[in-house]
């Protein structure tokens, strides 16, 4: 009648280091394929909207300022994003990628979760337009 079969294991643990990870004091390496925050490269985008169409969480919005001159701003709602990577998959021009460095995204305010990607002047133009329209800020949908 064997009892206490785990005896050897628990005795061994007595002299082992606990396996508990001491995050955030000690950070483990994250895998290369980790899907963190989304980044967008405005130079390659053609404005096909495929990323927006298939986003399961409606986290993406492509604002077309000038279709001919390829002036786009990608509005990315990081708080809605479910980090599935479908947009990256959909993009035929490889202008989207998910970072494996930016993944500690928690924040106490809402501002960091709304990201406008694009050329600086385009983003500024958009913000100015929003300010002129008298709305509360970039949080409002146009």
């Amino acid at each position, binding site marked *: *009648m*064997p*009892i*206490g*079969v*785990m005896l050897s*294991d*628990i005795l061994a643990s007595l002299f082992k280091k606990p*396996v508990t990870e001491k995050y955030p004091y000690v950070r483990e390496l994250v*895998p*290369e*394929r*980790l*899907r963190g925050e989304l980044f967008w490269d405005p130079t390659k985008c053609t404005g096909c909207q495929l990323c927006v*169409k*298939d*986003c*399961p*969480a409606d986290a993406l919005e492509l604002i077309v300022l000038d279709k001919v001159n390829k002036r786009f701003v990608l509005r990315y709602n990081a708080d809605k994003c*479910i*980090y*599935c*990577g*479908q947009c990256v*998959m959909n993009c035929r021009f490889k202008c989207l990628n*998910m970072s*494996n460095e930016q993944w500690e995204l928690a924040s106490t305010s*809402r501002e960091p979760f709304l990201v406008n990607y694009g050329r600086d002047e385009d983003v500024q133009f958009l913000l100015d337009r929003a300010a002129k329209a008298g709305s509360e800020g970039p949080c409002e949908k146009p």
Partner: protein
Amino acid sequence: MEAKVVPQKFIVPIGPQHPALKEPGHFEFTVEGEVITGATVRLGYVHRGIEKSTEDRNWVQNLYLLERICGICSHIHATAYVLGVEALAEVTAPPRAQAIRTLVCELERIHSHMLWLGVAAHEGGFDTLFMYSWRDRETVMDLLEGLSGNRVNYSVNVLGGVKIDVDEKQAASIRKGIDFLKERTTYYMKVVTTDETFLGRTRDVGTMSYDQADALAAVGPTARASGIPRDVRSDAPYAAYPQFPINVITAKGGDLAARFVVRINELFESYRLIHEILDKLPVGELTTRVPRRIPENEVISRVEAPRGELFYYLKSNGSEKPERIKVRTPSICNWATVMNFAVGLKLADMPMILAGIDPCFSCSDRTVVINRTNQSQVWSWEDLRQYGIKYYR
């Protein structure tokens, strides 16, 4: 609470909030002393209305919605769905994609069974086994994270293939992890089959004979522990299972101990299969094109989730969105077995028996559309959203 106790009918409620259940479900056990004389179940505390929501999203978006039915067996839901959609669109994913899907399925099964081993041990008050099995489960979680980039909701599948590839480095780390797990699993097998105190809690507890399991249409490891060789992976092989056949694991006992044995033996089977897939991984493309509009048809897709047979019914109407998606999860099938076997058992065994079928509440609850707040108003999704926005401002 009423200020009196009716002695002849003493009901012990378990849930919706209860330390034994990490997920919300409500059970009422009528007890006499320690012996149970009646049992009822009420689910629906985490209904999210997924079946209805699918009708509002396109075929690609639904993949991620359905993947989130269950956090533990997310990949298998996505697999059932993509196999169904591919059948509707009359395309077949390339062999390499199918093999990688199968590989992730098996890794997920390992993680689910290890998780179950820990939970079941914890329900029996054996916290040491719980801690150890979850510690070792981290190995497979890390493998999945390294492979897909995420610990849960791997999003490996896309319509028509998979997103990720397995290179030699990945394969080597998987082989290494699996070999470590194999050694640990051998040890856990020894613990659950020989430790007298643990066997005292599992042997002849919640026994379900072959005929009973058959009559109640049990699925998955619950059925296989009663000797029913029911496994979709071998009955109706899908994905890469035709090329990589499995041996169906069964046990005779039908009690809790048998369910432990079946699940642990399935772990060994998964290890074997993973090695085999890695050795003979077909070369080729990872994806194939799937049209955005799916022709009108209906299809049934069955896969073997870690908990048992997962059943998808998909109906398309020729548009970008599905007409109807029905999901029947294995937990639903197995509830009947628990409720039928509770009577006559001891209250102390109940948490373990509940855990014994490996219930998944988020799997069982998935169809309600609208949430109810404590204000007792019926709120629409939009109202809730507005409320949430107001609340956080």
